[in-house]
């Protein structure tokens, strides 16, 4: 039997998709982001869809280019840090691109605001921050109740800047003491409305190692490592 040519061999992503660890996270974010999508639907009074979550485990150096095609793209980032006892940390980041931000503000402020993102006024910034916060809190509440956990959210932060400049700080948080190469787990899911105008939000779940272990313990029991 001859070996298949190299380009037919499954790549790392292929295995990642079937890794039970990743499957659990995918399911978890499905539940979490599903609740966020419902909340957005009520807030905007529109039909809202979501995509199947994508799971990526990547070296931190590569993460900014996975999140956006270009490091210098200006995006809105809403960040909520959630903590449990003993160093377990599950951070949440929502990224909204420029076009979606304008659409969202158009719906919520009832007039189209096409100001450059860097020059948005306090009211628009506040609307974006609270919208992001509502969606992320729905996400973490759903995850807490599904896994019987108690991740407690801090107050939200909003940053409007180049995606590359927000990624390093957020992704490093909770990973500085990792062994070897720093790899971050990105669970991404798109939330978008279906009303002609697209609002797309990308929600990232960023568990640190302790949180990852906690999640697996609660989903698969104490002996989960033997199952992997």
């Amino acid at each position, binding site marked *: 039997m001859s070996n298949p040519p190299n380009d037919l061999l499954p790549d790392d992503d292929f295995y990642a998709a079937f890794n039970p660890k990743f499957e659990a996270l995918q399911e978890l974010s499905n539940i979490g982001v599903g609740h966020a999508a419902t909340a957005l639907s009520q807030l905007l009074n529109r039909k809202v869809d979501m995509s199947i979550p994508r799971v990526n485990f990547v070296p*931190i*150096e590569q993460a*900014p280019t996975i999140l956006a095609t270009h*490091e*210098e793209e*200006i995006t809105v980032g809403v*960040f*909520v*840090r959630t903590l449990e006892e003993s160093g377990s940390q599950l951070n949440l980041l929502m990224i909204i691109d420029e076009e979606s931000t304008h659409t969202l503000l158009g719906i919520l402020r009832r007039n189209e605001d096409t100001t*450059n993102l*860097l020059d948005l006024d306090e009211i628009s910034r506040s609307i974006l921050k609270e919208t992001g916060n509502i969606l992320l809190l729905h996400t973490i509440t759903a995850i807490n109740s599904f896994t019987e956990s108690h991740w407690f959210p*801090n*107050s*939200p*932060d909003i*940053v409007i*800047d*180049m*995606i*590359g*400049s*927000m*990624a*390093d*700080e*957020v992704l*490093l*948080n909770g990973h*500085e*003491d*990792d*062994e*070897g*190469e720093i790899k971050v787990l990105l669970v991404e899911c798109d939330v978008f409305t279906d009303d002609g105008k697209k609002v797309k939000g990308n929600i990232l779940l960023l568990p640190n190692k302790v949180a990852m272990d906690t999640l697996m313990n609660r989903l698969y029991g104490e002996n989960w490592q033997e199952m992997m």
Partner: protein
Amino acid sequence: MALFTAKIGEIVVGKKGDQLQALALGSCIGLVVYDPKLKVAALAHILLPEKNKFSKPGPPGKYGTEATGESIKTVVSRGGLRENLVAKIAGGAKMFESLTSGSNMDIGSRNVASVTKSLGEHGIKILARDVGENQGRTIIFDINSSLLRIKKGNGTILKTL
């Protein structure tokens, strides 16, 4: 005449006529070590202040504690003179307020401190700096003029150092 981009952890080097850039620095630091007379420069894109006890050797520009030494070596190997070398730094912002709660200093400030200390230990003078605050920076160093341009995300030039 070329434009070289330092990705996270990398050091790029150029000579007369070249430009060096680092895109979208947040808490990261862009460190330029250069010989203004012979027109040789290196730019490091630094991610972290120092290694932790588990770290394996990373790319040469990843840690503040190592990037200075590596940059000096790189510039000298390309014909720069050790005694001519000076530096400019930019970056080390604190983008998210909530990441600085508690006793730990934010990663940006720690990066600045680490790079400043390391340059001092190597006896390299910092001629200009644009660090801290809460905004992202793209930096471009022009080797001919030794000028460091700092840009905001929308392309406007914040300042030239």
